[in-house]
């Protein structure tokens, strides 16, 4: 197990190295010039050249990337071009908000998705089942911003139950978390449904029923814990999907997380911040996948990974 974890961690390191290289390369070759953004339109060619030299952007690609990587190995993610602050500081300031939103979003999608899945499995083939499965299709077909705007319109503008946007109180968290929860619930509902159906067919469930246990007890104490296991392994993979979606949801609700940081940086071609957020997101994605892989044998000891 320890050797396996070590090998996977080395793989994670290599993947992050690759992500950093590709992102750096793309930002280097693309026709976006950060110096123009910093200097402004009226800058003289001399000023532009000075800034370029100061930031080391006049160096060849290999030197620039080498410097970045060298800094990264020492925990230095560079400085923002426009905000004149360390990228690490900026990200650390924003990360708690994003993690809070992510945790609340995952909790929301588990509650909504698992409930839908269990109900659909128990009333399999009935109208409730098809209705819920149709709903799950709708949630996976909806773009984040549409759901976000819809919730915002109904619950903040019309009903006034929650603030329109911002950060600080638990009330601010409800709508963004619910948006992410609704969007992610469809997949969980479908996995939970098929897992539950499979478990309900198992011999031990029949045995439990045969020895006279109440149906509700069999479902809650015997079927549910077993059916939930495969769903839990999904959470790791889900983290990756979250990291992508967070840009839009944070934008709509004015949530001050790393998604907003990235969006502002992209508009101003602030390369160190874009690099930093991409790497942090990639880190979350690979660690999430690793977690999912490592959890599988813990959940079901019959499965051993190589």
């Amino acid at each position, binding site marked *: 197990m320890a050797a396996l974890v070590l090998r996977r961690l080395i793989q994670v390191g290599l993947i992050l190295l690759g992500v950093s290289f590709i992102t750096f390369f793309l930002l280097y070759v693309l026709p976006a010039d950060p110096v123009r953004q910093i200097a402004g339109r009226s800058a003289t060619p001399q000023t532009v050249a000075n800034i370029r030299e100061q930031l080391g952007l006049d160096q060849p690609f290999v030197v620039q990337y080498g410097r970045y990587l060298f800094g990264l190995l020492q925990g230095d993610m560079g400085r923002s071009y426009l905000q004149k602050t360390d990228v690490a500081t900026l990200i650390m300031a924003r990360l708690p908000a994003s993690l809070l939103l992510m945790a609340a979003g995952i909790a929301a999608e588990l509650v909504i998705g698992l409930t839908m899945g269990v109900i659909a499995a128990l009333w399999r083939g009935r109208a409730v089942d098809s209705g819920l499965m149709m709903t799950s299709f709708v949630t996976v077909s909806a773009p984040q911003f549409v759901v976000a705007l819809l919730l915002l319109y109904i619950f903040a503008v019309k009903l006034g139950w929650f603030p329109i946007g911002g950060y600080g109180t638990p009330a601010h968290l409800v709508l963004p978390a619910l948006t992410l929860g609704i969007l992610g619930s469809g997949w969980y509902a479908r996995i939970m449904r*098929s897992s539950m159906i499979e478990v309900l067919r198992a011999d031990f469930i029949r045995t439990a029923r045969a020895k006279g246990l109440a149906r509700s007890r069999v479902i809650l104490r015997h079927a549910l814990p077993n059916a939930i296991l495969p769903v839990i392994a999904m959470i790791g993979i889900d983290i990756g999907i979250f990291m*992508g979606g967070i840009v839009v949801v944070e934008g709509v609700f004015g949530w001050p997380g790393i998604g907003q940081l990235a969006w502002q940086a992209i508009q101003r071609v602030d390369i160190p911040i874009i690099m930093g957020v991409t790497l942090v997101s990639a880190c979350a994605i690979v660690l999430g996948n690793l977690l999912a892989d490592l959890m599988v044998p813990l959940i079901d000891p019959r499965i051993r990974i190589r």
Partner: protein
Amino acid sequence: MTAVLATRGASSAFKRLLQRKMALFGLALVVLIVGAAILAPMIAPYDPYEQHFDGLSLYGEPLPPDATYLLGTDLLGRDLLSRLLYGARTSLIIGVMANGIALMIGTMIGITAGYFQGWLGSVLMRFTDLMMAFPALLLAICLAAIFQPSIWIVAFVIALVNWVQTARVIYTETSALAARDFIAAERTLGASTARILFRHILPHLVPLIIVWGTLGISTTVLLEATLSYLGVGVQPPTPSWGNIIFENQTYFQSAPWLVFIPGFAIVVLALAFNLVGDALRDVLDPTLRGSD
């Protein structure tokens, strides 16, 4: 022989598809939307770019739906229905094109890696793993924002972040096929690599490609809508469902229909392809048959 089997398989698969209510519903929606997009010049009541003199209220605000403008007007006094119909063209063109490119890249990488294995396969699949670790939406936003996007660039950017799933599925399937006896037999008979790949392996992959191609259209349509909503996708005045929402967002509170009608259209389009794709997967993928 193969052709006969393939046609028989296809027609029976189609019949089984038609027996599913959800798939039928999805198919009807697809036909409706594609039809509306193709017929847009004939059925659109107005020119989607025309800013009507009477298209704004006295205070310069968009008009709610009425008899003249069936779905109301947008912030520049243009007819929303006409813009939606033409927007369907943009969304579908990008969806189909981006998805086509993604499918092609994914299939090529998957087949090559799956058939040749060895160092080439390893390199390709490690690269695919690498792409899996990218925050796709972030990458797409970043690329789209940097290239002042045209429709083609938006489609290309979407394709670049969307081929990975296909590559992995095709890789797994090709690896399994390449190890089968009939492929070894072909090789012994002296068939060329090209012949084995195109005549024997590719036809077996067609169902997978159809399934992922259908499901992929919803993914690409959603991604296009998101990019356009953020203002880095299709640029106004060309209408796309995402940028209609982007343009009119300032009127979100006073004219919510400008946001929710296009939003509804996006959901319906993505839903339609998801329903058809999911049913196709059940019908075409023998490993899943009877599991539901």
